[in-house]
C-alpha cells in the first residue's frame, strides 16, 4: 500500500477488509492455552488414579502439585512460540480473557497458599479439587461469552455441572477425596478445556483458510 487517494467505495472496502483480517489473525491459537492446561490436568488426574491403583498408596495425590509448575512453563513456551510464529495483535477481547483467567488463577494460587499455611488441616485440600472443577469451567464460559462462541459456553456450563455433583457429595458425605474423583476430574477437564480448545483452534483455522 502507498499514500494515495482512494474513492469513497474503496475506503469502505478497505476498512471492512482490514477489520476482518485483524479479526481472523487475533483468533489464531485461541485454543492453545486450553489444550496445554486441559491435556496436562487430564493426564495428571489419570496418572494419580493409575499410580494409586497400582501402588496402593495415597501419596500420589501430590502429583497434582506438578500441574502449576509444568503448566506455567509449558504455557510460557507455547505463548512465546506463538508470538514468534504469528505475531498476533492484542485485542480488547484477548485482553479481557487474560484478565478473567488471571483472576481465576489468583483464587486458585491463593487457596493453595492457604492450604500450605494450614498444613495440619489436610481436609482443606479437598477445596483445591472443588476449585479445580469449578474455576476452569467458569473461565471457559467467560471466554466463550467474550468470543461469542456458543459451544465453548456450553462446555463451560457442562463442566460446572460436574463441579456441582462434586460439591453436593462433599456437602453430604463430608470432606474426603475418593479415587473416583480423579477420573471425574479428567472427564471434567476434557469437557471444560480440551474440547473448547479444539473448537477454538478449528474455527480459527477454518476462518483463516477462507
Amino acid at each position, binding site marked *: 500500500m502507498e499514500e494515495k487517494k*482512494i474513492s469513497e467505495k474503496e*475506503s469502505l472496502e478497505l476498512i471492512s477488509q482490514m477489520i476482518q*483480517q*485483524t479479526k481472523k489473525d487475533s483468533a489464531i491459537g485461541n485454543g492453545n492455552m486450553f489444550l496445554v492446561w486441559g491435556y496436562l490436568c487430564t493426564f495428571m488426574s489419570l496418572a494419580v488414579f493409575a499410580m494409586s491403583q497400582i501402588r496402593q498408596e495415597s501419596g500420589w495425590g501430590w502429583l497434582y502439585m506438578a500441574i502449576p509448575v509444568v503448566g506455567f512453563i509449558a504455557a510460557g513456551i507455547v505463548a512465546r512460540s506463538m508470538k514468534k510464529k504469528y505475531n498476533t*495483535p492484542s485485542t480488547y477481547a484477548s*485482553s479481557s480473557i487474560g484478565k478473567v483467567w488471571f483472576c481465576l488463577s489468583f483464587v486458585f494460587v491463593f487457596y493453595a497458599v492457604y492450604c500450605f499455611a494450614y498444613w495440619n488441616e489436610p481436609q482443606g485440600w479437598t477445596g483445591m479439587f472443588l476449585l479445580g472443577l469449578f474455576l476452569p469451567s467458569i473461565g471457559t464460559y467467560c471466554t466463550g461469552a467474550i468470543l461469542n462462541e456458543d459451544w465453548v459456553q456450553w462446555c463451560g456450563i457442562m463442566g460446572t455441572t460436574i463441579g456441582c455433583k462434586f460439591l453436593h457429595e462433599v456437602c453430604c458425605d463430608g470432606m474426603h477425596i475418593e479415587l473416583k474423583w480423579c477420573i471425574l476430574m479428567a472427564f471434567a477437564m476434557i469437557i471444560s478445556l480440551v474440547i473448547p480448545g479444539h473448537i477454538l483452534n478449528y474455527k480459527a483455522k477454518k476462518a483463516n483458510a477462507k
Partner: protein
Amino acid sequence: MQELDPLLHSQLRLAIMSILLSVEEADFVYLKEKTEATAGNLSVQLEKLTSAGYITKETDGSGAKPRTICQMTDAGREAMQNYVEALKSYFTGL
C-alpha cells in the same frame, strides 16, 4: 455531503487506522505485514498520525529486539467515527 478528513482519506493511513480500530495495540511489524507497505513509508505515515494525535507510538525494549507498539487514541477513534459518518453521506440515496 460531508467533507472527508484528508488525513484519513489516504489508502495507507486508513488501513493503519482500520487495523488499530479493532485491536488494543499492534506492533510495527504487524502493521507492515498487513499493509504491505515499506518500512520507510509506514514510519512516515505513523508519524503523521501521531502528530495529529490519532495514535500513540511507544517503544517496548523488554524483548530481545525493541518493538514499536501503536495504539489508537480517543481522538483517533472519534476521527474514524466522523470519517465513517461522512462516508455514509456519500452513499445515502443510492
